[in-house]
C-alpha cells in the first residue's frame, strides 16, 4: 500500500511550507517534496509604480531580511539612474550601504543560529519538543540566549542608524543613500557600554563559532553525514576572489571546485540562469542554462559562498576559513550541516566588517547621491544572508516600472532543499510504520540548515509551521502530525 506523509507546517523557518513524502508498500521512499504554499505576487503589483518606490515597496515581502531586498532593488536602480554598479556610488553612499548590509547579516545570522537552530544542537534533534525551542534555550542556557538577543539588537541598531528604521527603512535610494552616520552614532557603536559595542560583538561571534566547533567535535558523524550530497555552488565574489557580500561578479563552481560560471557581470544573469516552474510549488526552480535542469541546479548561501570565495578579507574570519577549508582539503564543502559552521564564520566576518567600517571617516561624509544618464533597465544582485538575491527592473519613458523579476535566495536553494528532504526522509523513515516527532524534526533540521525564508521565496507573508500527513495510495489519510 502506497503511503504519503505530509509535514505541514514546517517550523522554525520563515514562511509557510509543507513536506510530502510518498512510501511504497515495502516502506521505501518513492518521492519527497518541499511545497511552498504561499503566494503574493510582488513582481506584478510593483508594475506601474514609480521606480524609486521599489526599494521601499519590495522590501515589504520580508520582515527578517528586508535590508537585502532594499539594497538589491536600490542597486538595480543605481543602474537605471546612471550611477552604475559597485564603486559608481560615492564613498559615503557605498560604505553606508555596506554597513547597513553587514548589520543585517549580523542580526539575521544571529537570529538563525541562536533562535532557530541552537535548540536542535542543545537539546538534540529528537529532544523533547516542549523545551526544544528558544524559550527552552532561554531557561536552560540563559547566557547564550542573552547573547543571541543582544547580537540581534546590535545588528538592528546598525540598520536603524543607516536605514532610518530597524525594519523597513528607507536609507538606500537610487544612486546612493539619504543619510550619513553621525559622530555620536559611530561612537556609540564603537565605544558603547558592554555588550553593545563592536569589540564585544566580534568576541561573541568568535564564541558562537567555538560553541559550534565544540558541538561538531562531539557529534562529528552527525554533522558530516546528515544530508551530505554533492552540488554546484553559486555566489557573488569580489573580482579578486574574496568573499564580498555586497557586490562582485557572479561565480559558480561544481562539486569538485571547477568554475562553471566564470565571474560574469550580473547585468547579464538572464543569459546564464533560467527558472523552471513546477505545478506543485509556488517557488520556482532556477538552474544554470548551460548545464540544464538536471545538472545545472546549485546551492546558494553560506556554504556556497565559502565554496566560491578564495579568501575572506578580514583576519579573524580568514583564520577560521582556513581551518574550515582544511576539513575538505580545500575542495567544495557539500555537508549540509556545515552550513551552520559557514554561517558562523560569516557572522564573525560581518562583525569584523562592521568594526572596520565604523572606523572609516567616509561614513561621515556629505556626498550622498550620484546620478548619470538614465537607463531603461537595471539588475541588482546582493548576497543576502540566505544566498544570492536577484532584482531586475525595466521602466518606461514615464519612470514607471513595467517589468520586475526577483530570484530570491531561498528560491535558488529550492532544488537542494528538496534533495535534502529526500535524503533525510530515506535515511530516517524507510521501512517505518509510525512517524515519530523526532523523524519529523529530522526533516525540518535539513530544511532549517538552509535558513529558508519561504515568505521571501514566494514573495509572501505568513507564519511558518509544518505538518506531515500519511496517506495510502488512494489518498486516504492514515496519519497526520502537525507541529506548531
Amino acid at each position, binding site marked *: 500500500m502506497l503511503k504519503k506523509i505530509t509535514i505541514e507546517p514546517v517550523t522554525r523557518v520563515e514562511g509557510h511550507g509543507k513536506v510530502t513524502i510518498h512510501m511504497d508498500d515495502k516502506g521505501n521512499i518513492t518521492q519527497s517534496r518541499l511545497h511552498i504554499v504561499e503566494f503574493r505576487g510582488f513582481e506584478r503589483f510593483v508594475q506601474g509604480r514609480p521606480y524609486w518606490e521599489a526599494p521601499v*515597496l519590495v522590501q515589504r515581502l520580508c520582515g527578517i531580511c528586508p535590508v537585502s531586498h532594499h539594497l538589491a532593488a536600490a542597486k538595480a536602480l543605481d543602474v537605471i539612474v546612471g550611477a552604475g554598479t559597485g564603486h559608481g556610488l560615492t564613498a559615503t553612499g557605498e560604505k553606508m550601504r555596506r554597513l547597513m548590509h553587514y548589520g543585517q547579516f549580523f542580526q539575521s545570522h544571529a537570529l538563525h543560529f541562536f533562535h532557530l537552530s541552537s535548540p536542535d544542537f542543545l537539546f538534540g534533534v529528537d529532544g523533547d519538543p516542549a523545551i526544544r525551542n528558544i524559550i527552552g534555550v532561554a531557561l536552560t542556557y540563559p547566557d547564550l540566549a542573552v547573547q543571541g538577543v543582544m547580537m540581534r539588537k546590535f545588528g538592528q541598531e546598525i540598520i536603524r542608524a543607516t536605514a532610518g528604521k530597524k525594519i523597513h527603512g*528607507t536609507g538606500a*535610494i537610487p544612486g546612493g543613500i*539619504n543619510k550619513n552616520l553621525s559622530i555620536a552614532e559611530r561612537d556609540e557603536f564603537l565605544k558603547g557600554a558592554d555588550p553593545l559595542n563592536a569589540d564585544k560583538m566580534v568576541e561573541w561571534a568568535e564564541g558562537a563559532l567555538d560553541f559550534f566547533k565544540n558541538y561538531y567535535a562531539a557529534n562529528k558523524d552527525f554533522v558530516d553525514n546528515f544530508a551530505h550530497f554533492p552540488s554546484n555552488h553559486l555566489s557573488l565574489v569580489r573580482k579578486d576572489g574574496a568573499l564580498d557580500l555586497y557586490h562582485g561578479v557572479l561565480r559558480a563552481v561544481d562539486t569538485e571546485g571547477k568554475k562553471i560560471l566564470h565571474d560574469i557581470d550580473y547585468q547579464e544573469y538572464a543569459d546564464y540562469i533560467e527558472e523552471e516552474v513546477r505545478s506543485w510549488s509556488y517557488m520556482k526552480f532556477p538552474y544554470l542554462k548551460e548545464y540544464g535542469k538536471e545538472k545545472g541546479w546549485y546551492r546558494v548561501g553560506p556554504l556556497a559562498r565559502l565554496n566560491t570565495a578564495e579568501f575572506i578579507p578580514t583576519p579573524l574570519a580568514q583564520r577560521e576559513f582556513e581551518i574550515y577549508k582544511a576539513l575538505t582539503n580545500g575542495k567544495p564543502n557539500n555537508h549540509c550541516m556545515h552550513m551552520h559552521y559557514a554561517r558562523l564564520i560569516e557572522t564573525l566576518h560581518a562583525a569584523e566588517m562592521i568594526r572596520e567600517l565604523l572606523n572609516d571617516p567616509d561614513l561621515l561624509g556629505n556626498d550622498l*547621491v550620484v546620478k548619470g544618464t538614465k537607463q531603461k533597465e537595471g539588475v541588482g544582485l546582493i548576497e543576502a544572508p540566505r544566498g544570492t538575491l536577484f532584482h531586475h527592473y525595466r521602466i518606461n519613458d514615464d519612470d514607471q516600472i513595467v517589468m520586475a523579476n526577483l530570484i530570491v535566495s531561498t528560491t535558488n536553494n529550492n532544488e537542494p532543499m528538496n534533495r535534502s528532504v529526500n535524503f533525510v526522509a530515506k535515511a530516517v523513515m524507510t521501512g517505518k510504520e509510525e512517524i515519530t516527532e523526532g523523524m519529523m524534526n529530522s526533516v525540518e533540521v535539513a530544511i532549517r540548515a538552509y535558513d529558508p525564508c519561504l515568505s521571501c521565496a514566494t514573495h509572501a507573508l505568513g507564519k511558518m509551521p509544518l505538518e506531515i500527513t500519511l496517506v495510502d495510495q488512494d489518498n486516504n489519510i492514515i496519519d497526520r502530525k502537525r507541529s506548531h
Partner: protein
Amino acid sequence: MSNLIKFKIDSKECMAEKGTFIVDAARENGIYIPTLCNMPGVKPKGSCRICTVRINGRLMTSCTTPVADGMEIESNVADLQNLRKSIVELMFVSGNHFCPSCEKSGNCELQALGYLYQMLVPRFPYDFPIRKIDATSPKIIKDQNRCIQCKRCIKTIKDEQGRSLFAFRNRGHRLEVVLDQELGHLMTEELADLAMKNCPVGSIIKKEIGFNTAIGNRKFDHHAIGSEITL
C-alpha cells in the same frame, strides 16, 4: 479702535480680531483644530469637514465660520473627536493609501491625523477602488490612489497667466483631480516643488527625488500634527 472680541473654545477664554475664522482664531490662542482642505492664503470652502466644531448645538466648519463676540465653541470633545476620526477613516477606505511604500509617509497630513486619532484600523469596509497614475508630466506624478480631492492643488498651483494646472473632472463617485496635460508638460521646477508641498497626502509627488529625506528628519517624525500650535 481695537476690533478684538472675546469668545470661548472648550471653556477657555480666547480673543481674536473680529471676522477671523474660528480655525485661525483658535490657532492664535494656542488651540489646534485639524484641517486638511484648508490652507493659509486660500479662500476656505469647508469641503473636508475635518475642522467641524459645535456652536450652540450646531455643527459648523471652523474654517468657514468667523468668530463672534461671546461665541462658545466646542472642539476638543469626545464626540467631535470621534467624528473627525471617522472622516479620516473614510478617507483611508475610499482610496488606496498604502503608507508603507508611500514617499509622503512621515510628511503626510492624513497619516498624521490617523496617528493623532489613534486609528488602528478603519471601522468601515475598504472600497479598494481601481484608480490610475498619471506619470506623463516630466516633473510630477499624479497618483489618484491617494487623492482626497481637497482642491488645494487646484487653488494654489497656477502658471504665470493665472491658469490652474489642476482641475476637477467627472462628477459624483467618478470625480477626480487631474493635471492639465498641456500645462503639465510645461510645469516649472518651482511649481512642481510647490504642488508636492501643498498636497496634504502623497497624490502629487515630484519625480526622481523619492525618499531623499531620511527617517527622523520628516515633518511628523518627532511631533504630532498640531503640536506646534498647542506647545
